[in-house]
C-alpha cells in the first residue's frame, strides 16, 4: 500500500515536472519586455484574425516614377495576400514629419505594432520594444549580412529587422583627380585614399589645374561626425553616454581641417562655400565634394549621365571591353570614395534602417506579437533591395544582393566597393536618448565651435577639450533634474 502510494506520488511528480517543462519550455526561453514574458515561438492561430498596425516614413524619391508610399502599400498588400488572417493598418508619414507621434504613442502605452525606422534604427523603449533575435530562425539570422546584424544589435539583442545600410561617401571629380588620370585603371573597385594621399592630390590638383580643393558643406554636422568615426572607428558617445572620442583624436581631425584651410583646400568662408559647392564641383574648380547623402548622390550621378546608360550596370560576371569603355566614359566626372582614412583605419559612419516591433501596455498576446514580427519580417525583406537600389545603400540580406545588383543602374565595381565598405559600418548608438544627445551636441556645440577653428578664432586643442567635456554637462541637462 505504502509502495503504491509512493509510486503514485512519484508518477504525479513526474507528470507535474513534464507539464511544467512543457509549459515553461526552458530550452525555448521567453523574451521579457516590460514585465511581460513573450513566447517567441507562439504560432499564429489560423482561425483568428489579426490586425497589425504599421507606421512607416515615406522616402521622397523624387526621381522615381512610383512613389515610395506606393511601393510600401504594394508590399503590405502582398503580405496580406500571403497571410490572409493578418490585416495591416498602414500609416505612411511624410519624410519631414517629426517622430513626436511615436514618442507620444509610447508615452501613452500604445505604440504601433511595427515601426519603420528609415532614418536609423533606435531602441526607443525597453518597456515596449521587443528584442527579435529569438523570433528569427537560424536560416534567417544567417541570411542577414554581418554588418546589418551588427548594426541593429545592442547588448546581444536585435532591436529591429534591418532593411539596408547606408554608409557615408565622398565624391571625387575623376577628370581632375591627379593621382591617376583614370582612377579605375588600376583598381577593381573605386579606391579609398588616406589623409596623406588626399593632401597630395589636393596639392597637385591646385598646381596642375588651379583647383580650389574640396567643395564642402561644413554646416552639415554629419561631415565632422563621419570624419571622427573614420579617425576613431567609434561613435561620439558610448551606450552610457560617455565620450569615446579622445581629445587627441578630436585634435587630430580639427588640426587636419585647419591645415586644409591654411593650405587653401577649404575656403575660410564656410557659409558661402556651402552654397556654391555644386557649382564649384561642376565647373571643375573643386576636385571633390563632401558630405553627400542618397539624394545628392542621385543628383551627381544623374547629371553625369551615369544613370542614363543601360550599360552602366552590366550583368555579372564579366565586363566586355565595350562596356568597360562605356563605363569609363560615363564615369568620368563622378566617382564615390570614402572620407580620408585617418590612422589607416577603415571605419565608415553609416545609417541602418529597419522595422522595430512593439507590444502595447495592454498586451495582445503571444500570437499577436508573432503576427507583428511576421509583418516586420515580410516588409523588411520585400523592401530591402528596392529601397537600397534607390538610395545607393546596401540591402540587409545576402539573398537580396543579386536582385540589388540587377536593379541598380551603377557599375558593378561601385556596388562591390559599397559592399566592402559597409562591412566597416559604424552606426549611431541605438539608444534613442544617446543618439539624440549626440545629434544635439554635434549641432549645438561641435559645429559652431568647428567653424571658429576654421576661422582661426579657436585652437584645435581648445576645441578638442570642449568637445570631450560636452557630454558630461549635456547629459545631465538632457536627463533633467
Amino acid at each position, binding site marked *: 500500500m505504502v509502495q503504491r502510494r509512493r509510486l503514485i506520488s512519484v508518477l504525479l511528480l513526474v507528470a507535474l515536472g513534464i507539464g511544467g517543462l512543457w509549459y515553461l519550455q526552458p530550452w525555448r526561453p521567453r523574451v521579457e519586455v516590460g514585465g511581460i514574458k513573450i513566447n517567441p515561438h507562439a504560432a499564429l492561430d489560423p482561425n483568428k484574425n489579426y490586425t497589425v498596425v504599421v507606421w512607416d516614413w515615406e522616402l*521622397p524619391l*523624387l526621381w522615381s516614377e512610383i512613389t515610395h508610399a506606393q511601393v510600401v502599400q504594394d508590399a503590405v498588400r502582398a503580405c496580406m495576400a500571403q497571410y490572409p488572417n493578418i490585416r495591416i493598418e498602414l500609416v505612411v508619414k511624410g*519624410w*519631414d514629419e517629426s517622430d513626436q507621434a511615436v514618442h507620444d504613442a509610447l508615452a501613452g502605452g500604445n505604440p504601433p505594432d511595427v515601426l519603420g525606422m528609415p532614418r536609423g534604427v533606435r531602441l526607443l523603449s525597453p518597456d515596449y520594444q521587443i528584442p527579435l533575435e529569438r523570433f528569427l530562425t537560424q536560416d534567417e539570422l544567417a541570411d542577414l549580412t554581418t554588418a546589418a546584424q551588427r548594426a541593429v544589435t545592442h547588448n546581444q539583442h536585435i532591436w529591429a529587422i534591418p532593411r539596408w545600410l547606408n554608409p557615408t561617401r565622398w565624391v571625387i571629380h575623376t577628370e581632375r583627380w591627379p593621382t591617376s588620370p583614370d582612377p579605375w585603371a588600376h583598381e577593381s573597385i573605386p579606391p579609398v585614399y588616406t589623409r596623406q594621399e588626399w593632401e597630395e592630390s589636393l596639392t597637385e590638383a591646385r598646381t596642375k589645374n588651379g583647383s580650389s580643393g574640396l567643395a564642402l*558643406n561644413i*554646416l*552639415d554636422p*554629419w561631415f565632422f561626425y563621419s570624419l571622427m568615426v573614420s579617425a576613431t572607428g567609434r561613435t561620439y558617445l558610448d551606450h552610457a553616454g560617455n565620450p569615446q572620442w579622445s581629445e587627441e583624436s578630436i585634435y587630430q581631425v580639427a588640426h587636419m581641417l585647419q591645415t586644409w584651410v591654411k593650405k587653401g583646400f577649404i575656403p575660410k568662408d564656410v*557659409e558661402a562655400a*556651402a*552654397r*556654391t*559647392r*555644386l*557649382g564649384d564641383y*561642376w565647373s571643375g574648380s573643386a576636385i571633390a565634394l563632401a*558630405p*553627400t*547623402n542618397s*539624394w*545628392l548622390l542621385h*543628383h551627381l550621378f544623374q*547629371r553625369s549621365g551615369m544613370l542614363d546608360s543601360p550599360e552602366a550596370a552590366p550583368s555579372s560576371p564579366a565586363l566586355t571591353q565595350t562596356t568597360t569603355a562605356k563605363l569609363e566614359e560615363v564615369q568620368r566626372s563622378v566617382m564615390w570614395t570614402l572620407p580620408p582614412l585617418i590612422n589607416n583605419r577603415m571605419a565608415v559612419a553609416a545609417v541602418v534602417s529597419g522595422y522595430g516591433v512593439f507590444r502595447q501596455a495592454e498586451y495582445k498576446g503571444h500570437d499577436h506579437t508573432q503576427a507583428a514580427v511576421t509583418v516586420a519580417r515580410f516588409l523588411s525583406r520585400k523592401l530591402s533591395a528596392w529601397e537600397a537600389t534607390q538610395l545607393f545603400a546596401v540591402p540587409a540580406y545576402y539573398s537580396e544582393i543579386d536582385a540589388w545588383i540587377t536593379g541598380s543602374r551603377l557599375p558593378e565595381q561601385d556596388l562591390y566597393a559599397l559592399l566592402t565598405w559597409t562591412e566597416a559600418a559604424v552606426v549611431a548608438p541605438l539608444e534613442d536618448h544617446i543618439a539624440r544627445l549626440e545629434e544635439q551636441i554635434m549641432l549645438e556645440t561641435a559645429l559652431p565651435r568647428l567653424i571658429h577653428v576654421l576661422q582661426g578664432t579657436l585652437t584645435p586643442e581648445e576645441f578638442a577639450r570642449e568637445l570631450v567635456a560636452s557630454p558630461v554637462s549635456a547629459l545631465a541637462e538632457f536627463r533633467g533634474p
Partner: protein
Amino acid sequence: MRPQRLWGLLIAILLLLPGVSRSQPFTCGISLAPLMPGPDADPVDVADLQTLLQNNRYYFGPIDGIYDEALAAAVRAFKQAQHLEPTAVIDEDTWSALAKEEPSTSDATTKPKPTGRMRVEVDTVRLRLTLFVNDEPYKSYPVAVGKMTGYNWSPVGDWRIVSKGVNWGGGFGTRWLGLNVPWGTYGIHGTNKPYSIGTRASHGCIRMHNRDVEELYSWVPVGTPVRIIGQAPAVKLRSQLRMGDSGQDVVKVQQHMQALGLQIDADGRYGPKTRDQVRYLQELYGLPADGAIYNDMYYLLGLK
C-alpha cells in the same frame, strides 16, 4: 466744388468700377483710345487697320504702320459704306465693322454650363485653350497668344482669374478675364481681330473669339486656376531669390520644382509655400537649409 475734391471723387468712382481702372491691361498693348491719323498712331494697330481695310478691298497701299492721308481716305470711304460717320477716327464701332467675325473652331458649339472643379489650360504651342472640369477636358477653343519676341511672350505659369470685365470694346472684345501675373497685366479676352485667332499675334494676352470668351466668362468664376504652358523666354537668373521676390525667374524655379514632384504653383511669387518647399529640398539634399535659392539650388534644379 474744389478741384481736389473733384479729383478725389473721380478716383473713387473709378476704383469702385469693378475690373476697369484697377486692372486696365497695359501689358496687352491694346489701347482703349480711338485710333487717329498722325505720327502718334500705334504702328501695330495701324498695320492691323491696313490689313483689315485691304481684306475689305478699301486699301491697296503698303502695310507699313503709318497712318497717312491715303489710309485716312480709305477709312472714310469704308465708314461711309458702313453708314458710320465718315471720319478718319477708328473707334470701337469701326473696329467691329472692320472685323468680320470668323467662325470659331471650338470643339463644340453648345454645351451646358459645367459643374465641378474647373481649371483652364492654355497651350501656347497648339494655340488652344482648354477648360477642364474635374480634371477632364470639357471644351477647347482656338486662341491667339503672344508673339515670341521681346516683351510679347504669353506668361507661362500657374495663374488665377482675379478680375472679370464686360464690354471694354476695341481690342479687348466683349469680355475680359484678368490673371494675377505679378510682372504685368495679362488676361484672357475677346478681340476685334478675329482673323488673328490661331496665330501668335498678341502682346502676351490670350485672345479668343468674342463668342468663345463670352461662354467661358459665363462659366468660370474668379479664382479659377489658369495654367499657361509652352515655350517661355530665356530669363536671367538672379544670384539669389528669397521670400518676397517675384518674376519670370521665380516661375522658372517653381516649374523645375514641379518637375521634381513638389506640390507648388508656378505663380512667379516667392511666398511662404515656395520658401518651405525650397527648404524641404535643401534638407533632403544636404544643402544649407535657409529657404532661399542660391547658386547650388540652381544646379540642383537643373537651371545651371
